[in-house]
C-alpha cells in the first residue's frame, strides 16, 4: 500500500515558481492594432448590411394605410382600367372565334349544298333514261383486246417445273 502511494507522489511534476505578468506586458496586449473595414479589404457584399440597402431616415416605419377616398379612387381607377382591358380582349377573342365558326359553318353548308345538287342531277339523269351512270365511261371504252400480231405475254417456266418436282 505505502509503496504505491509513494509512486503516485513521485509522478507529480516538481513544483515550480509561478511567474507573475508584469504590468507592461498586459498593457502591450490590449494595445493591439484594430483594423478598419476598408483596411481589411473585405468584399462589400460580405458585409452585415448589404450595399444596396440603406435605412431610410425620416420615413414612416411599417405599413402605409390607404384610408382617404382619393387614394382609394386612384387604385380603383387603375384596377378598373386593367379589368376593362381584360374584358375587352376576352370579347375580341370571342368575336374572332365566332367569325371563324361562322365561316366554317358556311363552308360546310356550301359543301353540303353542292353534294346535294350533284345527287339531284344524277337522279334526274337516271329518271330521264339516260344511262350515262357511274360506269358509263367503262362501257364506252371497253378493255382493248390483244391483237394477234402482238407478242404473247412472257411466262415464267421454272415455276411450273418446281411444282412438278414437289
Amino acid at each position: 500500500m505505502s509503496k504505491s502511494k509513494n509512486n503516485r507522489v513521485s509522478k507529480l511534476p516538481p513544483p515550480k515558481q509561478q511567474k507573475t505578468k508584469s504590468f507592461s506586458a498586459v498593457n502591450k496586449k490590449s494595445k493591439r492594432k484594430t483594423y478598419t473595414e476598408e483596411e481589411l479589404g473585405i468584399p462589400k457584399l460580405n458585409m452585415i448590411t448589404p450595399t444596396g440597402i440603406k435605412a431610410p431616415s425620416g420615413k414612416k416605419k411599417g405599413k402605409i394605410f390607404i384610408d382617404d377616398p382619393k387614394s382609394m379612387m386612384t387604385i380603383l381607377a387603375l384596377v378598373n382600367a386593367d379589368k376593362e382591358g381584360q374584358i375587352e380582349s376576352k370579347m375580341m377573342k370571342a368575336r374572332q372565334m365566332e367569325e371563324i365558326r361562322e365561316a366554317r359553318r358556311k363552308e360546310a353548308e356550301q359543301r353540303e349544298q353542292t353534294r346535294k345538287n350533284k345527287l339531284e342531277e344524277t337522279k334526274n339523269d337516271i329518271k330521264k333514261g339516260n344511262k350515262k351512270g357511274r360506269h358509263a365511261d367503262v362501257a364506252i371504252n371497253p378493255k382493248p383486246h390483244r391483237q394477234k400480231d402482238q407478242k404473247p405475254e412472257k411466262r415464267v417456266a421454272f415455276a411450273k417445273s418446281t411444282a412438278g418436282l414437289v
Partner: protein
Amino acid sequence: MRPLTEQETKTLFEKLANYTGRSLSHLVAPPASTDSSSANANAQVMTFRLHGLRVYYLPVSLANLATTIARPNLLSVGTCIGKFSKHGKFRMHITALDVIAPHARYKLWVKPNGEMPFLYGGNVVKAHVGKWSEDCPAHQGVVVLAMNDTPLVFLQNETTSRSDRGD
C-alpha cells in the same frame, strides 16, 4: 381593426371588379345627389376596415366608434366582404352579395320555378333563365338574381351566354 394597405386595397378591388362595373367607385365615394342637401347629409362615407384577416365594409363614423372597443373584444363590425387568405389572396363571402349586387356588370335572372333547384345546388338550365345581360364573356363574374331582383348568388360563369346558339 385597421385600414387596408395599398396592396390589400388593390387585391380587394381586383376581386370586386370581377363582378362589378365602373360603378364600383360608388362603394368608396357615394354619388353626389342633386335633389336636396338633406340627402347629401344622409349619404355616409363608407370605408373598408381589416380586422383579423376579414375585411369589413362600414361607414366611417362607425369605424371611428369601433376604435373604442379593444381588438380581442371586437367580433365584427359593418358588413363582412370577405377575408384574406394567409397567402394574401382575397376570398369573397356571401355577405358581400348585397354590396356588389347593385353594381353588378353582368346579371342573370332566374325564373321562380328555377330558383329552388338552383339554390339546392343544381345548374341554371336554359328553360329557367328569365333574362340575362348580353355579351357576357366566359369565366366572368355574374350575379344571379330572382325575377323580383333579389340577389341569390354571385359566381363565375363557365360559358358565354349566347342566345343565337339554340342549345
